């Protein structure tokens, strides 16, 4: 088994005086999807934002063996971390092409043509819409653009916050296919999902988050077979 690319040990995150994530530990390996499932407000998004550097994180966080607590977001992006936020955070008034080009900002000065073609190959829809403004696109297209923009930085760890939120089932399955392809190509994926069924089916490892704690963690297949989790998160059949 390969070395973990991202490791958290006893990581906590607070908003001011309120602690939202209480000492969680995880490790994500290249070529693996690690999913964190849990209800709204469990602290999943907070955790992801803190790993990316949008919020301060206490505890040990290492990326490729190097402590990242003191790194700025741009240093984390340059090191190979990318976050596709739940709200996508696109540049609405700019074209699809400009959004993608800016995705390669930390590698500016280097040619980005191949990366652009690779994104267009993954999402042919974006190539058709390359000159369209980002804020005129449908929800699914915007999600594709957000993922495509993240891929332009050549991430080794791709973090996805609710990529299926508000999308039609067919588009969700397309996006999960792309995520799985990325994994097979060696990218480590940290996936946060409310759609626990799809997430557990795609992932190799999973953790269940409740009120800021990981209540269980293990191989995704084991978590998916846990009766308590089936009744809480997967619904009964």
């Amino acid at each position: 088994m390969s070395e973990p690319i991202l490791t958290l040990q006893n990581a906590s995150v607070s908003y001011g005086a309120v602690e939202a994530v209480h000492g969680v530990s995880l490790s994500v390996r290249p070529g693996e999807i690690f999913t964190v499932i849990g209800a709204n407000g469990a602290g999943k998004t907070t955790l992801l934002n803190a790993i990316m550097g949008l919020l301060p994180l206490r505890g040990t966080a290492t990326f490729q063996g190097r402590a990242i607590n003191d790194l700025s977001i741009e240093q984390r992006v340059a090191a190979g971390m990318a976050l596709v936020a739940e709200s996508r955070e696109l540049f609405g008034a700019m074209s699809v092409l400009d959004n993608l080009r800016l995705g390669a900002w930390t590698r500016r000065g280097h040619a980005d043509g191949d990366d652009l073609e690779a994104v267009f190959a993954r999402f042919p829809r974006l190539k058709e819409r390359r000159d369209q403004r980002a804020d005129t696109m449908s929800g699914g297209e915007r999600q594709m653009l957000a993922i495509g923009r993240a891929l332009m930085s050549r991430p080794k760890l791709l973090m996805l916050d609710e990529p299926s939120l508000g999308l039609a089932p067919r588009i969700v399955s397309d996006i999960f296919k792309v995520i799985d392809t990325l994994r097979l190509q060696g990218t480590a994926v940290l996936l946060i999902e409310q759609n626990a069924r799809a997430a557990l089916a795609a992932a190799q490892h999973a953790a269940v988050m409740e009120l800021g704690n990981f209540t269980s963690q293990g191989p995704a297949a084991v978590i998916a077979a846990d009766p308590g989790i089936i009744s809480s998160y997967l619904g009964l059949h």
Partner: protein
Amino acid sequence: MDLTIFLFLLQDGLTNGAIYALLGLALVLVFSVTRVILIPQGEFVAFGGLAFALLSTGKVPSLIYVSLGTSLAALALDLWHLRGSWQGASLMRAVAWRMALPVITALATLALAGPHTLLLINALLALGMVAPLGPGIYRIAFEPLAEASVLTLLITAVGVHLALEGLGLLIFGAEGFRAPPLSSAQIAAGPLTISGQSVAIFAVTALVMLALWQVFSRTLTGKALRATAINRTGARLVGISATRAGAQAFGIAAAIGALSGVLIAPVTTLYYDTGFIIGLKGFVAAILGALTSFPLTVLAAGAVGLAESLTAFFASDFKDIVVFSLILPVLLLRSLRHARAEDEE
């Protein structure tokens, strides 16, 4: 009022409007990138104009030392921030980035200043003195507050304005100055005489706007600045440094302010505190442009200039009141549209 007077007022209003447009654009740029309402913009105008006027009398403005000092203080903060990871290359880059322009400008000023120096060189020297103040002030006063509320940033901006105004009194004195025109030509066009200075103001304004537009629509650096303005979180997520974008926006604003000062110094007597009211009129244009729209700001600036010159003719005592009252209907409209008051963005 006959046609000649009207045309004269029109020319006057639009000339002033062009200056307000430049200042309004700088304010919109700075606000959208950093959320700072740049009250000290007026000081950049006054400093640029006064330095230009002093240079044309052959004197060396002590502004060069303020520029050097501000940049040195900012550099010290940079180095303190980088402590522990001082490496040759990054250290050199930090020093060059902060000090290149103020040092070159100071040396060039000491070498070239004299009563017969070309106006163009004087103008460039004045720009070179004021432009580094932008990133320097951003580093010292605003970067440490990057996460603060708009109101906190505004209060800080007022503080910076007052400090700079005091500094202006110290280095330029209470006396007013006027600079020789860039062009003293007079062009007769029918009933109207157009001054060369007006033409210069329009030409430079148009060039600056064209240059800004090219930078923002063609270059990746310009697009990164726009991206920060459109979506700050999105920009951070692709690794665009918010502090770098802020420093660039402040640098552009300071340069535009100084350029405006150079352009108006030949037509207005400038005092150390004249800039404030001029900057505020640019601010009116920026507000009318909702602090976000560049084209609306330019149009509004034209309207502000016209309103000012027309009221100056009919009721000159009231011209500032009329101009500043222009923002009332806009504020009223906006507050009605957003029924609940928004303290934050």
